[in-house]
């Protein structure tokens, strides 16, 4: 019979392997579920997980969808390490886009190299300001940031709806609920001519390396990890939990805001009610798939971006509904949490003794 045995030390092999096992199990279960529902399960899974990687023309697409996921997940992971559970990145992402768009609308009839950097700065500050509210409530009043950050997401989305339908509505837009299109000086430059690969993609990769250096090489990263793992030891070592909460919330807000600005000034080029697509929530899965490690998050971001791209492919090839993408993402998180058990436990085959 099978028996669970506790490992003496967490397995580093399983730490690296369990995300891969989770992906494998998700593919297998997805195949079974969609076959049972009457779809071509085999091809559905192939379209979602393999086609995006096999067709080079999809790679730019993966990059465009992966960049915001990676940016947001980097910030979330820093917080998660410190036991600060910001799950309202979607709201900070929207607020970053709103703040950047505000600058764009103010500078609509101007030109200059400084406009895009000003929008980037506004985006970062917008995300930080939105994250500062749960940070303040947690530090001063011990209110759970899980609830406050999540609820503020809906506030941010409603604010977006109000702005694009009211004060910020494009005067020449035939009454559609959307802002003006951004000008050339307000749009992210392309890194590769003639492709979709915008500046946000290399920036996300660069920030992943910086986040890795922060977590692994600096006293600040050390403090974040100690506060998360052993709060009493952190106090003993002279680290302030309140300061760490502030710092990690602001970092994750800043990165989510930056991602929102990049998305607004990149693929969208304006704000519309369709702007919030759930990257802030999907990034939670990316953070865990990457084991809260900045370099792992690059991998996780690519996988999740591929499911978005693959989900679109599967809509046309096997006629899967759009919701299938979300279902695969949720299954992936579920499997990931389940396979995590293998890090601390191992399965042994034990013959029953009479």
């Amino acid at each position, binding site marked *: 019979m099978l028996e669970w045995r506790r490992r*003496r030390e*967490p397995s580093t092999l399983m730490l690296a392997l369990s995300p891969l096992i989770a992906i494998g199990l998700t593919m297998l279960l997805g195949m079974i579920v969609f076959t049972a529902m009457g779809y071509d399960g085999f091809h559905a899974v192939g379209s979602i997980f393999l086609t995006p990687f096999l067709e080079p023309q999809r790679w730019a697409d993966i990059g465009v969808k992966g960049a915001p996921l990676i940016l947001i997940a980097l910030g979330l992971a820093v917080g998660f390490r410190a036991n600060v559970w910001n799950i309202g990145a979607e709201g900070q992402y929207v607020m970053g886009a709103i703040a950047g768009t505000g600058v764009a609308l103010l500078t609509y009839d101007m030109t200059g190299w400084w406009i895009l950097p000003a929008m980037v700065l506004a985006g970062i500050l917008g995300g930080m300001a939105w994250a500062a509210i749960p940070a303040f409530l947690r530090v001063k009043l011990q209110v759970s940031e899980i609830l406050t950050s999540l609820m503020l997401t809906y506030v941010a989305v409603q604010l977006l709806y109000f702005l694009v339908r009211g004060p910020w509505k494009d005067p020449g837009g035939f009454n559609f609920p959307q802002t003006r299109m951004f000008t050339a000086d307000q749009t992210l430059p392309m890194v590769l001519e003639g492709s979709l690969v915008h500046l946000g993609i290399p920036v996300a990769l660069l920030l992943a390396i910086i986040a890795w250096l922060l977590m692994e090489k600096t006293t600040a990263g*050390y403090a974040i990890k100690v506060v998360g*793992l*052993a709060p009493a*030891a952190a*106090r*003993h070592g002279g680290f*302030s939990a309140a300061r760490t909460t502030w710092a990690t919330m602001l970092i994750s807000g800043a990165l989510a805001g930056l991602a929102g600005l990049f998305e607004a000034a990149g693929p969208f080029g304006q704000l519309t009610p369709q702007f919030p697509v759930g990257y802030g929530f999907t990034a939670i899965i990316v953070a865990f798939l990457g084991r809260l490690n900045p370099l792992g998050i690059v991998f996780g971001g690519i996988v999740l971006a591929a499911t978005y791209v693959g989900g679109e492919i599967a809509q046309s090839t096997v006629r899967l509904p759009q919701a299938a993408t979300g279902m695969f993402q949720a299954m992936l998180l579920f499997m990931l949490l389940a396979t995590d058990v293998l890090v601390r436990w191992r399965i042994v085959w034990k013959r029953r003794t009479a």
Partner: protein
Amino acid sequence: MNQPREQEVPPRLALAHISKSFPGVKANDDISLSVRPGEIHALLGENGAGKSTLVKIIYGVQQADEGSIHWNGEPAAIPSPKAARKLGIGMVFQHFSLFDAMTVIENIALGLDEAVDREELKRRVAAILQSYSLPLDPEREVHTLSVGERQRIEIVRCLLQKPKLLIMDEPTSVLTPQEVERLFETLRQIAAEGCSILYISHKLHEIKALCDSATILRGGRVVATCDPKVETTKRMAELMIGAELRKIEHGKAAGGGAVRLEVKGLSLPGEPPFGTALDNVSFEARAGEILGIAGVAGNGQAELLTALSGEQLAAAPEAIRLDCKAIGLEGAGARRALGLACVPEERNGHAAVPDFSLADNGVLTARHRLPLAPHGFISRGAVRRFADGVIKLFDVRTTGNAALARSLSGGNLQKFIMGREIGQQPAVLVVSQPTWGVDAGAAAAIRQELVDLAAKGSAVVVISQDLDELLELADRLCVINEGRLSAPRPVASLGIDEIGLMMGGIHGAEEPVHA
């Protein structure tokens, strides 16, 4: 068939060739022992000798891989603690399982296997308290009780089951000397009524005073069975440790140095819900001396340590002075940079991060005084060298500086933590329970380090519940009781009874219950 003759009464409990392995360690290796009816049998050994595993097997918490158990001459299987209690085996654990916010009688009712009518239970408990003259008020809430009183709850719980064998796991580790004496009287009476007692301890003089026979374990094996009343303490200690005992070497008489740490009128609220407030604590520690702070657990020791370490700030800067500098409002990092090092009682999670390597744990408190993280960047090389140095100098048994703190035994982790602090040459070292749960060999090494540090001109403050340790180490001794600190007295002038009374405070003078 022949009737067994009088001297062939089968032993109450007989273990034959018991072995039990865990991954990487053989906790029990071919252990045999037997306990006669009414005998008080000592199970003696250091931490990690296999005592706990053996007892868990007897009490049905764990199953042996090999070997057999006989109960009153009959082969017995003990698959669960419930089965053990059904046979007549009771156990008082070292750590009590009591609900602080409930009364004594409610706690007893919760621990019973079968539901008993409340009035009936009250009557039975009162009868037990009466017949063993145990002072305990069944209606008091547990958080108002001393540790000795809490232990009596556990004993009453066992006695209600009318046990034939009572297992006591390190019962005296938190008791005052008077409470120990009272416990021994109770245990002798229980044994005289025919109940066997398996008494687990590493305190030799207690075993000499109480037990009829002793089984000594080392490294999971039985190394000797002896009569503790005949065998010398020194010989038993050497059997237990497997080496000759090292005597602590004190330097020349100390105490005349300059005041390095001065605490004046320090008051702090206790941590909720049942913390103890510090009430106007004042003392000074001088260069070259070891100041001992005795006291029963939960009388403000933890609060005093966090107040000194800077985890809790004082109300005014002048409440704490280090080398004449007022530091009452400085944080933990600043105090350490100035030379005040502290070692809290809890190793995993307070003094060290369990999931960090030893190297990383060095950074936690050594980065203020040593160049481990210049300009906020951790220097891997310096961190590893520091950890390696501590491991080598303080003889930490580990696979290396990459080993996780949680993988080390209590004694080895404590050696690393002490080494981390002493290696920084602090002006003042405050340490709580320096040898709690540490094997005798490591404890001796740690105590020697403390003496050596004081000899070099630092002031050392040792907060401990272990009186033997304080009497061995300290030059002056004070007692903390309900958050108040007594005036220090030179150890040479103190008798153990006197200390015991100071420690007991108002708990020492309880009246017996009138049932």
